[in-house]
């Protein structure tokens, strides 16, 4: 095999899948990851399980991580970023800089960008007192607690009444206007896990719309029917820490009445934002960015096509999406890269 390798940037679900698929086609891969560990968001934030079926994260990502680490076709460069590129499709030259400062120039045939997302930083939105009041946490923090099997407040007390506030940092003009698509499902999944963990906890979901798309709807139904989780349609204006509990001020739009109810814990369904990595790669590879800061595909309906020949996009750097979609997109991008590699081989 003499062809040039394919560069995959980002080792999250999409990147890992792309690298795995290419390696299985006997195409060499250079997998560059900004962090120390492979696995992307699900590993970084220690996702306990994945919606909609409570599949352990390990079961989904484990085999891919193991394969990428062991495959002779894949060269993993951790703690590194791509800084610049030149050349054209089939014959790119890229500059990879490691955190320790070491720079290497590499020749690659194609580039797959799968740099993923960051969770919305809720301190930006002072309504929710995130970062100021204790026991106001994001879904990412709750996920860690669930992974550890121990959900407690800052004082070690088990919460009796928990509110989930949906659409924090999404569908909101003052922060991020887009819908993050997965937070509804993930929050409901966590609510069910919380209910299983702490039997007599009362859970209230404060939502504006429930968007459990596709087969995820089952989560929504089960949460109500089997677990007695309550849903309040409305928005929250302020979370106030009384020194003991959290006073959530909101409106139940179905009764058209304001409520001020005390909770022990407030979980914010923080949305998906294009992360630092995505911003960095956009400037390094001179990719087009849309009005929301995500990488813009040439045609919005065809995610993998970056508009630049030989550079393909996959996963949440293009738009918010679930792990299953990211994996599918990784495969799709790998297929495009494989097509390009096989074509260049014939020409050569």
């Amino acid at each position, binding site marked *: 095999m003499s062809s040039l390798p394919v560069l995959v940037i980002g080792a999250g679900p999409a990147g890992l899948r792309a690298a795995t698929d290419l390696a299985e086609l006997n195409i060499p891969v250079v997998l560059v990851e900004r962090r120390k560990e492979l696995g992307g968001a699900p590993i970084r934030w220690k996702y306990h399980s994945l919606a909609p079926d409570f599949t352990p994260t390990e079961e989904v990502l484990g085999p891919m991580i193991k394969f990428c680490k062991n495959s002779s076709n894949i060269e993993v460069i951790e703690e590194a970023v791509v800084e610049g590129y030149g050349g054209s499709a089939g014959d790119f030259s890229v500059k990879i800089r490691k955190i320790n400062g070491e720079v290497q120039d590499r020749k690659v045939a194609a580039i797959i960008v799968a740099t993923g997302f960051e969770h919305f930083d809720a301190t930006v939105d002072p309504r929710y007192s995130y970062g100021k009041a204790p026991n106001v946490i994001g879904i990412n923090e709750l996920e860690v607690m669930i992974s550890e099997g121990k959900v407690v407040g800052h004082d070690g007390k088990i919460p009796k009444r928990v509110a989930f506030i949906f659409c924090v940092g999404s569908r909101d003009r003052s922060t991020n206007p887009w819908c993050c698509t997965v937070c509804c499902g993930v929050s409901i999944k966590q609510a069910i896990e919380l209910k299983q963990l702490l039997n007599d906890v009362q859970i209230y979901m404060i939502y504006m719309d429930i968007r459990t798309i596709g087969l995820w709807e089952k989560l929504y139904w089960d949460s109500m029917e089997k677990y007695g989780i309550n849903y*309040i349609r409305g928005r929250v204006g302020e979370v106030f820490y009384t020194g003991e509990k959290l006073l959530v001020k909101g409106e139940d739009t179905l009764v058209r009445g*304001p409520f001020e109810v005390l909770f022990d814990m407030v979980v914010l369904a923080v949305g998906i934002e294009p992360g630092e990595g995505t911003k960095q790669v956009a400037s390094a590879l001179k990719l087009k960015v849309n009005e929301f800061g995500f990488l813009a595909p040439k045609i919005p309906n065809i995610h993998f096509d970056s508009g630049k020949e030989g550079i393909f996009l996959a996963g949440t750097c293009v738009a918010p999406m679930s792990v299953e979609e990211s994996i599918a997109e990784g495969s799709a991008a790998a297929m495009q890269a494989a097509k390009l590699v096989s074509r260049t081989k014939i020409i050569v």
Partner: protein
Amino acid sequence: MSDEEKGKHIVERKYVDDSRIIEPEKLEIGGIDVSGHWGTLVLPRTIEDFDNSMLKKVKSMPRGKNIEKCWQCGNCTAICPVAHAHPEFNPRYLIHIVKMGYSAEVEKLKDTVYFCSGCGLCSSVCPKGVDPQGVMIAMSIAFKSKKGYR
């Protein structure tokens, strides 16, 4: 004092529920008579708690057990022949306030549950199998229950 008499000095009286106005017949502050609108107070309408005791009662009734499946689509109210004639009877709304435990609202509306004619159309259109007709039966019993809800 009758409900109409209470708080009659409030200019926008019609926007205030009768139950929120407190105006005793006789009120004195340090020997000075402040009866009438000088001593009127208007309670806030904020919902301050979720009281699930009513929900438990309704769920314990044979045909009320499905109340938790409700997702407030409004199909029941849309098809209910009674609701079309009597807006104060709204099965969807009754289910919601009982589920969430808005006690003041339940107190205000609990007698409307007897408007239900038991025709069963709501149960036939419910997409989640809540059986609103059965829930209405469960509620009408629960509202009169001595152990239930005050």
